């Protein structure tokens, strides 16, 4: 308990003086720092039809880390914007900070000029300027908002919840919004330069002569020959990040009170710059009821991996008079965010230790066919779902991962970069280090490192829309897009083309066109791909009119993910990897829906 007591002391001290910036041994202004005020953790609620959101420079402290931050209305995260479906919204964005800003309403169906992407839908809001957002709120669910500038990773993000006009198809007694994020004392530009200079800069879980990874010498030589790293899970790790839940690091003692027997709705939002999280509450199953703000048919699980920019709503029903640990473990297991569900003030449950870091697998190299799993690209036909029978979903779902560290698997005849496998419109230049030899659909994959955790883990294949989708038409056209990259040069792109090469060559859809989009991941990292202004429906084996609607889809390494899209929002829309530094280094494109005159029903 000594650490608890110490933390309690620190928290109390920080909290009482934090708003005045006096919590430091020496205050920020006395150290000559320009940031000024120490940002408050957590955030206030903004509701109503006319909101004001003010961006400011600040400092932030969590644990032993302290550095520059950006706040909206004084807090990290910024305010919870809580709206009602059907209302109109006006937001005045005031930039009192020293950097360019904007707000993107992540997952909201807004007119494109309200979408908040500098260079695409608006000019960045410069220091001293204001910008007015104005749009009707046409949906309900759990979303978030964030800057589409360098300010995002510094704290310019917050939750956005829209209460539905009609009651939800499920009930709950208590609700928590849990916004996950990763905060570094380094400025984003510094992180970018480190990654460009030494791509493994933040990775302290690499293979070494003294590691205890289950890799044979032959496998180690194979990875070295490929010039790739089996430990390349997260580009930026807990070596600089503190993982926050509602602005609270693990040392900040975030407590979530509950009464035993209550049903609690957790709205989990991953507002990280670079971090996927494994979410679990040891001892408590979770029932997933919504993904990306859209209700799904309830599915019970013990753990799920949440990609950057995704949201999941889960219901939990703790019966015992005790504490439960809500654990958000980073995908590379270099750190975690922790909150404590407590039936009594101060109640604490043991926080599980970080699990052993995962390794990339054959499937992550795009060689999932190596052992003939029966998985084939594109559609699900022939996919073996035998393991989904019964209640043991997920735990044994890992197509591909089960063959992970095949003993003595010989890859010498498997080309890592056979560019003849690429479509002609993909540019195989220095920015393409790998071509997935056999990219299979990996919707049934629980995510890196979660194949053999001994309990149920959610996969996309378990998501089924709660109500029929608005557009039941079959797609008339297939659009294939390759996710390409080169970790060594820290280059990321779609179809091998840097953004500057495609600013005049957007991905084009006709208004109301129904298109199937297949994303092929020619890299060894999982990319959360986000399309602005639309929901798309994952082609995940669910019936055509109940495919789950999402705004962000994780495309597993070396695999593919496919969605159906009704292009019903005219305008130019950002389409990008939501890993901040991947977007920033080129994995960014424009989707345009024309003619612009259409869509007045919007």
């Amino acid at each position, binding site marked *: 308990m000594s650490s608890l007591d110490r933390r309690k002391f620190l928290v109390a001290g*920080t*909290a009482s003086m*934090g708003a005045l910036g006096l919590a430091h041994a020496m205050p920020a202004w006395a150290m000559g720092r320009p940031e000024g005020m120490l940002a408050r953790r*957590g955030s206030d*609620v903004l*509701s*109503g039809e*006319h909101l*004001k959101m003010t961006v400011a420079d600040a400092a932030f402290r969590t644990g032993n880390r302290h550095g520059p931050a950006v706040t909206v*209305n004084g807090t990290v995260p910024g305010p919870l914007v809580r709206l009602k479906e059907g209302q109109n919204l006006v937001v005045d964005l005031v930039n009192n900070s020293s950097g*360019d800003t904007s707000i993107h309403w992540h997952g909201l169906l807004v007119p494109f000029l*309200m979408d908040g992407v*500098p*260079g695409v839908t*608006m000019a*960045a809001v410069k220091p001293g300027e204001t910008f*007015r957002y104005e749009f*009707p709120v046409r949906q309900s669910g759990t979303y978030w908002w964030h800057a589409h500038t*360098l300010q995002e990773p510094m704290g310019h993000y917050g939750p956005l919840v829209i209460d539905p006009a009609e009651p939800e*198809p499920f009930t*709950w007694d*208590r*609700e*928590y919004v849990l*916004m996950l994020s990763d905060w570094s004392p380094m400025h984003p530009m510094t992180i970018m330069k480190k990654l460009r200079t*030494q791509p493994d800069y933040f990775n302290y879980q690499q293979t070494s*002569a003294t590691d205890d990874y289950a890799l044979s010498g032959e496998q180690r030589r194979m990875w*070295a*020959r490929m*010039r790739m790293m089996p430990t390349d899970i997260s580009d930026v790790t807990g070596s600089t990040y503190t993982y926050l839940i509602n602005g609270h690091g693990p040392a900040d003692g*975030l*407590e979530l009170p509950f009464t035993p027997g209550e*049903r609690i709705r957790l709205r989990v939002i991953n507002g990280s710059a670079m971090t996927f999280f494994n979410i679990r509450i040891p001892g408590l199953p979770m029932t997933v009821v919504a993904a990306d703000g859209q209700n799904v048919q*309830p599915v019970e699980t013990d753990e799920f991996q949440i990609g950057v920019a995704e949201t999941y709503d889960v219901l939990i*029903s703790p019966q015992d008079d005790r504490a439960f640990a809500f654990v958000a473990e980073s995908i590379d297991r270099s750190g975690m965010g922790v909150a404590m569900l407590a039936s009594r003030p101060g109640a604490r449950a043991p926080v599980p230790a970080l699990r052993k870091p995962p390794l990339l697998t054959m499937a992550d190299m795009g060689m999932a066919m190596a052992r003939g799993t029966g998985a084939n690209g*594109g*559609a699900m*036909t022939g996919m073996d*779902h*035998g393991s989904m*029978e019964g209640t043991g*979903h997920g735990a044994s779902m890992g197509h591909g991962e089960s063959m992970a560290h095949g003993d003595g698997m010989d890859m010498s005849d498997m080309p890592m970069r056979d560019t003849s496998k690429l479509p002609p419109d993909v540019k195989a*230049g220095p920015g393409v280090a790998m071509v997935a030899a056999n990219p299979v659909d990996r919707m049934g994959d629980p995510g890196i490192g979660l194949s053999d955790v001994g309990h149920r883990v959610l996969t996309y294949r378990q998501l089924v829309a709660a109500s029929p989708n608005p557009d039941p038409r*079959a797609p008339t*056209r297939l659009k294939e897009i390759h996710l390409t990259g080169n970790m*060594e040069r820290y280059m990321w792109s779609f179809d091998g083309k840097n*953004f500057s090469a495609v600013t*005049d060559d957007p991905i084009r859809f006709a*208004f109301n*066109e129904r298109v199937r989009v297949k994303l092929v991941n020619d890299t060894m990292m999982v990319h959360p791909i986000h399309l602005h202004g639309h929901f798309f429906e994952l082609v995940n*084996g669910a*019936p*055509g*009119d*109940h495919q789950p609607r999402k705004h962000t889809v994780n495309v597993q390494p070396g695999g593919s993910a496919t969605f*159906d899209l009704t292009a019903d929002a005219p305008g*130019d829309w950002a389409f990008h990897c939501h890993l901040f530094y991947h977007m*920033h*280094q080129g994995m960014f494109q424009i989707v345009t829906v024309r003619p*612009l005159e259409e869509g007045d029903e919007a």
Partner: protein
Amino acid sequence: MRHLLALPLLFAGPAFAQDHATHDAHGPSHPMPMASDQPEDDGESKAQAPGEDTVTLDHRMMNHGAMEHEPMDHGSMQHGSMGHADMDHSGMGHDMTMQHGATATPSTDSIPKAPPPPEAFSGPLHAADQFLGEDVMAASREEVVREISGMPVFWFMADRAEYRARQGKDGYLWDVQAVYGGHVDKLWLKSEGEGSFGEKPESAEVQALWSHAIGPWWDVQAGVRQDLVGPSRTHAVVGIQGLAPYLFEVDASAFVSNKGDVTGRIEAELDQRITQRLILQPRAELNLAAQDIPELGVGAGLDRIEAGLRLRYQIRREFAPYVGIAQEWRVGQSADYAQAAGEDPSVTNFVAGVRFWF
């Protein structure tokens, strides 16, 4: 345009000139949306008062009975047939009409890849231009493109900066690089040199190269090299630098001097992690010459070999002191030149230095 005018978006352009004094009705900002540090965190709770009651939304008034979905029957989720036809949601208490069969999802392979329809090409190239102004958006686009298309970065690295203890006079060596550029094209400056304390430097050179990525792992480099000591020489340089299979860092250059001499240099090094911070680095360098260059003491063929082994500890990634051993051999005609000059063609150096970058 008629339709667009109906959109609220048109009313929402930059509000630079708007008077926000009139906007003080910006939404009741009642505090405590999310969980706070309470109860132990008094100060912060006060800051976010009125506190606990608003932390949670009280849904007790809502009808729990509407949805008793637990236990849900997962046992019947026979996905093997992909149809979800057997999925039993009867226990979920609300209508989940799934309409199987009627909406089978077509397989991806059955959908043709085709170009976008003609109407997808209508209108201006950039949609925002016609609402916000071409100039405004062109400037904004330029900023974004510059930032996210591999904006130039600068780094300086001293790969070797070391003290060399050996028989006779101890010496020193530097081997540094400075790079500025984007993802594909870079200005690459290199300098290396060595000598013995109390004497003129034995060698010193600077190279200025343009470096261009020709593949995922390799850059081709071309430029000039200026020798700073000894007989004045300027060289044209062409080379390749990059990462070979098995993670060898390789730098190979050919030089043609203003006297017509052709020489070459191949360097390779390999970082072997012992721990996350302790790294053993074997390194080899071969110097070659196409002809004898007596005034430089260089013999045709293989001129000089260096083999080194350095053990460094990364206090930070950017700062790693090391110790090691470096062996040099002059060979062939070069060895004869060395002996004629009263030098030992074989020198063993015990080195201590620091590898750093920023």
